[in-house]
């Protein structure tokens, strides 16, 4: 059990370009996992260790999470480096799902930016305690105090400085540790040697004041510390204990300072990970017991109990599929049998490895709390593994529906095969990426969370799978919904010799309160026999896949059946499914169907002088601006904009703001497409259909 207490599973999340990969690289270096430092966009052309994909190295952004582990002062730290761009949010969500704690990196110049807010919301959803690292204190315009205020104001964190900077911008030399009240300097070629010195005379007063603030904040979580303050007997240990309690309760966020690029302040962050972030035993994890109607059960971080593990990431390597696993309960050994809950399929644990970016270390066993990888296991991302004695499933991850799609076609036969392989792989890896063949046009369609999301997969198809494909224009994922109640009463009857078909279904359809589908059975007296009710439900659900207005999926419908009729010989499941389909067709157009379009929450950040241009550009895109926040010389404009209007916005924004503004967007909701645009869409679709029919 003691071993588990010394394990830390952490994620590193932040806004793009805040220095996540640079920090991770330093951590691996100081923990002796690597012996040289390569920069993200380094001149040596090697690229940072965590950016294992060729594409990531080229673009200087981290696309897929790469898990790695290291050891620091007797603790085993498993790190998942996560992408910063919102289009890859599922990667962040997955990382948070299996992480016990996180380091939130903020740029000391840019502060809390829109993506940090998104990531923070996600961390709240998964109840992840975090510590913050304000990076880039060496940059011109660095103001860590402002960032701490932003943590409080924008993210509602009870942020407390654990350190204060010695110098800033070009003069940034080290930090004063407010717990030990010592100055820390990072010396040697790569800041390897931490020199502990006295606090510079000129900073003593400030350090004392900031330490008071730290003690005030920390003492809220520890009566012992509060008493010690009154008795003037505060020890470092008491402060650490109190800060740890506050952090674990997510009521306190300790803040560290540094510059990963300049090798300043990284080691104290590692100390902070050990001291303040939870071990797997500190976190309560829950699973669903499928044998007890999905009742929630707690998992114990105990190696002696039956094993429960979650596959949170799949990766293709030249040696086969690699499945990243978080073990929540029990232990795994080479040669063990595991059962995939979803399929009931048995698999044997063959090669068991611990990942270090794209290198690996073979293991013979692993236990609860560990993050490891298996080779050659056929499964999907999100699958639960048990030893077969338990029928548990880890609670499902929140998976947003795709909002954008485009057609792809291979350029030759070889590419056709490779494209299929690639699509098959991507679907298993990423639940937000979907692919299907359109029945009418025969085209292959891929869909996902944004333009960049799909762009990256198309690029990976080319590079990793050798599939040359051409892509169509991105299409928005429209939906249909009804707006009022409409009744149906439909009889399906084919009794013209041989075995007949008979079924009558009556009731009404109406909009449901949320976007989900609901089926209410109010049949009395068995006018539709109970065994045929699921067939009626199935019939309606089949129709939802393609609405009768423009053929888009139907959302937010509640069906109530209250009458019907059956025939003792000619009724069958098929007959009632057909009757439901007929009933749907009978009522749908009477129920006032409308077209819904995806609306994105868009945040544009840039110098304040461009506020007008940004507002104008959003307004032109049917956007609704909800707020504008000025902070320093920057303005962030928040808006809701239809996705259909956001294509190519990056280019427009660049030209409107001299490339100084950036935007992020995430799906917000579906909303009614204005009538005129719905008509336009209708004629566009019918023209396209006509075009397809031409020889």
């Amino acid at each position, binding site marked *: 059990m003691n071993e588990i207490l010394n394990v830390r599973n952490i994620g590193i999340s932040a806004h793009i370009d805040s220095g996540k990969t640079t920090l991770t690289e330093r951590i691996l270096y100081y923990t002796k996992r690597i012996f040289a430092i390569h920069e993200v966009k380094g001149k040596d052309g090697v690229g940072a260790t965590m950016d294992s994909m060729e594409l990531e190295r080229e673009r200087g952004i981290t696309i897929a999470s790469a898990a790695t582990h290291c050891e620091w002062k007797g603790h085993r730290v498993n790190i998942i480096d996560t992408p910063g761009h919102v289009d890859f949010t599922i990667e962040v969500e997955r990382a948070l799902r299996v992480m016990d704690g996180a380091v939130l990196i903020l740029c000391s110049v840019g502060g809390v930016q829109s993506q940090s807010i998104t990531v923070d919301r996600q961390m709240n959803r998964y109840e992840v305690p975090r510590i913050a690292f304000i990076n880039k204190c060496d940059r011109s315009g660095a103001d860590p105090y402002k960032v701490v205020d*932003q943590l409080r104001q924008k993210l509602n964190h009870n942020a407390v400085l654990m350190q204060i900077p010695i110098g800033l911008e070009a003069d940034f030399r080290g930090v004063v540790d407010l717990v030990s009240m010592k100055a820390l300097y990072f010396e040697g070629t790569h800041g390897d040697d931490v020199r502990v010195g006295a606090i510079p005379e000129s900073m003593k007063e400030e350090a004392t004041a900031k330490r008071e603030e730290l003690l005030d904040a920390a003492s809220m979580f520890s009566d012992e510390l509060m008493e010690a303050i009154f008795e003037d007997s505060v020890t470092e240990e008491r402060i650490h204990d109190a800060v740890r309690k506050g952090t674990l309760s997510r009521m306190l966020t300790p803040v560290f300072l540094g510059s990963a690029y300049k090798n300043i302040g990284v080691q104290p962050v590692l100390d902070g990970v050990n001291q303040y972030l939870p071990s797997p035993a500190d976190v309560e994890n829950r699973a669903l017991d499928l044998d007890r109607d999905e009742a929630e059960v707690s998992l114990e971080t105990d190696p002696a109990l039956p094993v429960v593990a979650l596959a949170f990431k799949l990766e293709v390597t030249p040696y086969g599929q690699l499945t990243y696993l978080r073990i929540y309960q029990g232990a795994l050994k080479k040669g063990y049998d595991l059962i995939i809950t979803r399929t009931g399929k048995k698999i044997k644990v063959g090669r068991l490895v611990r990942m270090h970016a794209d290198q690996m270390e073979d293991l013979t066993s692993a236990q609860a709390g560990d993050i490891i990888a298996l080779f050659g296991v056929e499964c999907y991302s999100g699958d639960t593994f048990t030893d077969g004695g338990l029928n548990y499933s880890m609670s499902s991850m929140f998976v947003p529906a795709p909002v954008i799609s485009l057609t792809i076609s291979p350029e030759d036969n070889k590419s056709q095969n490779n494209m299929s392989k690639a699509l098959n792989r991507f679907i298993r890896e990423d639940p937000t990426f979907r692919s299907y063949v359109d029945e009418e046009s025969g085209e292959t369609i891929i869909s996902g969370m944004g333009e960049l999301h799909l762009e990256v997969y198309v690029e990976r198809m080319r590079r990793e799978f050798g599939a040359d494909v051409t892509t169509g224009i991105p299409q928005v994922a429209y939906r249909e919904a009804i707006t009022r109640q409409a009744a149906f009463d439909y009889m399906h009857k084919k009794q013209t010799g041989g075995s007949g078909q008979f079924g009558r279904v009556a009731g009404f359809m109406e909009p449901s309160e949320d976007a989900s589908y609901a089926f209410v059975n109010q049949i009395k007296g068995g006018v539709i026999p109970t065994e045929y009710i699921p067939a009626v439900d199935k019939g309606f659900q089949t129709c939802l896949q393609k609405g009768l207005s423009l053929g888009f999926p139907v959302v937010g419908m509640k069906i109530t059946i209250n009458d019907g009729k059956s025939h003792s010989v000619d009724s069958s499941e098929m007959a009632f499914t057909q009757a439901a389909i007929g009933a749907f067709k009978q009522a749908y157009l009477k129920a006032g169907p409308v077209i819904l379009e995806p609306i994105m929450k868009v945040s544009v950040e840039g110098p304040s002088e461009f506020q007008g241009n940004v507002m104008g550009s959003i307004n032109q895109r049917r956007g609704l601006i*909800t707020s504008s926040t000025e902070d320093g010389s920057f303005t962030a404009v928040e808006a809701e904009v239809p996705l259909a209007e956001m294509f190519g916005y990056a280019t427009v924004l660049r030209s409107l703001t001299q490339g100084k503004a950036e935007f992020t967007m995430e799906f917000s909701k579906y909303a009614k497409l204005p009538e005129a645009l719905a008509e336009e869409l209708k004629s566009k679709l019918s023209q396209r259909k006509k075009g397809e029919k031409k020889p």
Partner: protein
Amino acid sequence: MKDFDSISPLKILEKSSNRALGAGHLGVLVARAGVGKTACLIHIAFDKIFRRERLVHISLEEGPEKVASYYDVIYTDLSKALDLREDDAYRFLMERNRMILAYLNQSFDMTRLETSLTNLRERLDFRPRTLIIDGLDFEHAERQVFEGLREMAEAFEVEIWLSALSHRHITEVNERGIPYPCHRLDDILSIIIQLQPEPSGIYLKLLKDHDRYDIPENRMKLDPHTFLALDVTSQ
């Protein structure tokens, strides 16, 4: 739906000669910390929004998410008091009629506000009738700021409601009965309302009504939980 007018804190203005603040004027709610200035300002905002009037909420302390969440909390109280059931309609009204401008970390200045209001008008055709300014530091702001706000109220044809923080230990009151920190600004402020916590509840007191001071029967009791008007009590 019950009538919002009957429970709105702005009902206090029934005691005012104009029964309103009016475009080109500044109104202020003065109270100690934690008494409910922000809640009352948001009720004033709802009063406008329910009349389908556009407004800009300017926050100098909180980010827009927090401001929006205050509105949501107060709307929950209102929906109970007024038996409102149409949440979608509320959201629609908010989306169309409310704009939040936040100025964090001392980034507020008159030029920036004027630029933002001009951008709203010219780029979005968003023409507010009311500005709500929460968190302006009355103690340290220069007199020119308030003069500038009044000029802005005239130029943009808006009424501006502000909140001012008073202190228990500063009891300074000018000869016209206007307390700190509004005592040196009452020539610029058209309406001054004080929020007073008392053992029996919270009271709104109309201290200045355009050119009038010493207004008779100038008090109104608020529900201490919802800040909605309860009854009229004469002083």
